C-alpha cells in the first residue's frame, strides 16, 4: 500500500486492530481496536495505570507492542526502523513534561528536526518555526532557553515544535497535568484552536471541559481495555458502563 492511495480523505488516519501489549507478565493493553478518521478529535480518559498513555505511545512506536496491527496514514507499523521513522514524521507528540531540549533556544527547539529530519534550509525552517511560535503566542521569547520560561509557555513551545513538522496527527499525553492551575487555560486554548482547524487529535487528559468542548468521541479505558466510547454529550450525560459512571462521579463529583 503506498501513501498516495492511503491519504485519501475517506480512509482512516489511524487503524488499530487487535492490539496487545505486555510489560513482562503484566498485560497492559488488551485487544484494543480503534479507528480514527481524518480530522477526528478523540479524548482518552481513565484511571491511572489504565494504559491510556501506553496506547497513544504505541501509535508512534515509543512503546513496542507484541500483538496486533497499527496503520497510520496508510503506513503499516513494522519493526523496521525506516518504517517507524516514516510514521513518526507524520505524527506529532506533546508530552506531560514538555521534554523541550534544554540546551537549545526556543527557536532551535523548533528548527532542529526540520533541519536534520526534513533537510530544510535554515531560513525556511526558521520561517516555519516563527509562524507556529506566533500561533502559540510565544514569538517574543524565541531566543530564550526553555529553562527561562514558565511551564505553560514551555508546553506551548512544545506544541509549536511538533506542529513545525507538519504532522497529520497530533498525540497529546496529559499535556496539562504538570502545569500550575493558572497556566492550564493558555495551553488548552492552543489545543482548542488546533482542533477547530481540523487537526486529527488524540488527547489523553483529565480536562473534561476540554473534552466537552472539542471532542468528537470520548474513550474511557480501564485495566488496559476500552470500556466505553461515545460522543461527549452521551458519554457525560448517559454513561452506560458502571465503571464509567464510577469514574465520572469521582472526577466530577467535587
Amino acid at each position, binding site marked *: 500500500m503506498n501513501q498516495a492511495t492511503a491519504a485519501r480523505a475517506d480512509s482512516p488516519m489511524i487503524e488499530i486492530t487487535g492490539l496487545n501489549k505486555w510489560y513482562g507478565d503484566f498485560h497492559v493493553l488488551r485487544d484494543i481496536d480503534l479507528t480514527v478518521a481524518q480530522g477526528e478529535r478523540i479524548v482518552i480518559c481513565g484511571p491511572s495505570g489504565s494504559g491510556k498513555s501506553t496506547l497513544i505511545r504505541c501509535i508512534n512506536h515509543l512503546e513496542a507492542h507484541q500483538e496486533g496491527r497499527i496503520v497510520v496514514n496508510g503506513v503499516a507499523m513494522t519493526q523496521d526502523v525506516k518504517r517507524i*521513522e516514516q510514521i513518526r514524521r507524520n*505524527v506529532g507528540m506533546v508530552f506531560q513534561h514538555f521534554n523541550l531540549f534544554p540546551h537549545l533556544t526556543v527557536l532551535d527547539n523548533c528548527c532542529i*528536526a526540520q533541519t*536534520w529530519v526534513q533537510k530544510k534550509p535554515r531560513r525556511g525552517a526558521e520561517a516555519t518555526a516563527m509562524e507556529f511560535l506566533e500561533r502559540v503566542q510565544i514569538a517574543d521569547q524565541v531566543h530564550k*532557553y526553555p529553562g527561562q520560561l514558565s511551564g505553560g509557555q514551555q508546553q506551548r513551545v512544545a506544541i509549536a515544535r511538533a506542529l513545525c513538522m507538519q504532522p497529520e496527527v497530533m498525540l497529546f499525553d496529559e499535556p496539562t497535568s504538570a502545569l500550575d492551575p493558572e497556566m492550564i487555560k493558555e495551553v488548552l486554548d492552543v489545543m482548542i484552536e488546533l482542533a477547530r482547524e481540523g487537526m486529527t487529535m488524540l488527547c489523553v487528559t483529565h480536562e473534561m471541559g476540554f473534552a466537552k468542548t472539542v471532542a468528537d468521541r470520548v474513550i474511557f479505558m480501564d485495566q488496559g481495555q476500552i470500556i466505553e466510547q461515545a460522543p461527549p454529550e452521551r458519554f457525560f450525560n448517559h454513561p452506560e458502563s458502571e465503571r464509567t459512571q464510577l469514574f465520572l462521579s469521582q472526577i466530577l463529583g467535587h
Partner: protein
Amino acid sequence: MASTRTEMIAQRRPPDLRRGAMGWLRANLFDTPLNGAVTLVTLGLLAWLLWPALQWAVFQADWLGDSREACSGEGACWVFIGARFESIVYGFYPEAERWRVDLVFLLMAALVAWLAIPRLPAKRWAVLVALVIFPVVAFFLLVGGSFGLAHVPTRDWGGVMLTLTIATVGIVGSLPIGVVLALGRRSQMPLVRGFSVVFIEFWRGVPLITVLFMASVMLPLFVPTQVEFDKLLRALVGIMLFWSAYMAEVVRGGLQAIPRGQEEAAKALGMGYWQRMALIVLPQALKLVIPGIVNTFIALFKDTSLVLIIGLFDLLAIIRAGLTDSNWLGFATEGYVFAALVFWVFCFSMSRYSQYIERRLHTGHRN
C-alpha cells in the same frame, strides 16, 4: 480579621550590606574571638611554612650563569634548569631541526587560542583544523622523512615536546573512543554491548604500567619480526585505549543523567539514532560531565610521565637524566620542583578552562 490592599508596594533596592575592607575582615575573619584566633594561627602557620620556601625558591636563589660555580648554594640553583632548558624542551631532537618543534608548538598555541577565546569566529573550522589538519601537519613536521625534511626517529624525541605529544594524542584520541564505547555499552545490540563491556572492564582492570610494559615488551613477541612498530606509537595506542575506558565510564554517567523524555521527544520528531545522540543526548550529557572529563584529562596528562619506565624520555625523565650529569650532581630538588611546576601549570590551566566552559554553557536549566 479581614484586610484588603488598595495600593501596591513599589520595588525597592536591596539594603547595601557592603562595608569596605574593614567590614569584610570583621564579617569573615574576626566575627568571633575564636574565629579571630583561628585566623591569626592560620596566618602564622602559613608564614612559618611559606617564608623559608620563598627564601629558597626566590630571594636566595641564583638565576644567572652557565655552570654550577654560579650558584652560592644558599638558595635554589635555577642555573641548572637554564643550562638544561633546551634538552628539557626538545629532548634529543637534533638542534638544526628544532624549528620544526617550535612551529608545531606555535600552531598548537594558535589553535588553543582560537578554540578557547570566544570572540574569535568560525569555531567549527577551528575544531576541524584541530582534529584533522593539525595532527597530520604535526606528524609530518615532527617525524619528517618527506617534503625534504630530515627524518627524526622517535627515540630522539623527549622533554616537554614528548610529554605534550603523548598528552595531546591521548586526550584527542580517548574522548571520541570513550564516547563510542559509552554508547556501545548502552546499546540494544547484545554483541555491541558485550564488546564494549569487555573492552572497558579489561582496560580499567589493568594498571597503566602493565599496559606500557605489554606494549613495549610483549607486543613485539606476538607480531612477526618483519613488522616493526615504533615504540612511541605502541605507547600512544596503549595510553589511548587505557584512558578511553575511563572516559567511557565518565560519559556513561552523563548519558544516564539525561531524562528518557529527551530521547523520546527526539524520536517523536522522527530523528534517527545518530541524530538523537549527536544533537540531543550527547551535547547535554557531555556538558554535564565536563568536570569528570577534565579530571580524566588531567590524570592522563600527569600519567604521561609513566612512559619513562619503557625508556621514553618525557619531561620528568629528561630532568632525571640531567641529574646524573656529572657537572650538575646534587640539584635534584630544583629539577623535581621545576617538573612539578610545569605539570601544574598545564593541569591548572585545563581546570580553569573547564570551569569557564561550564559557566558559558549554562542555559538556566537544572537538568
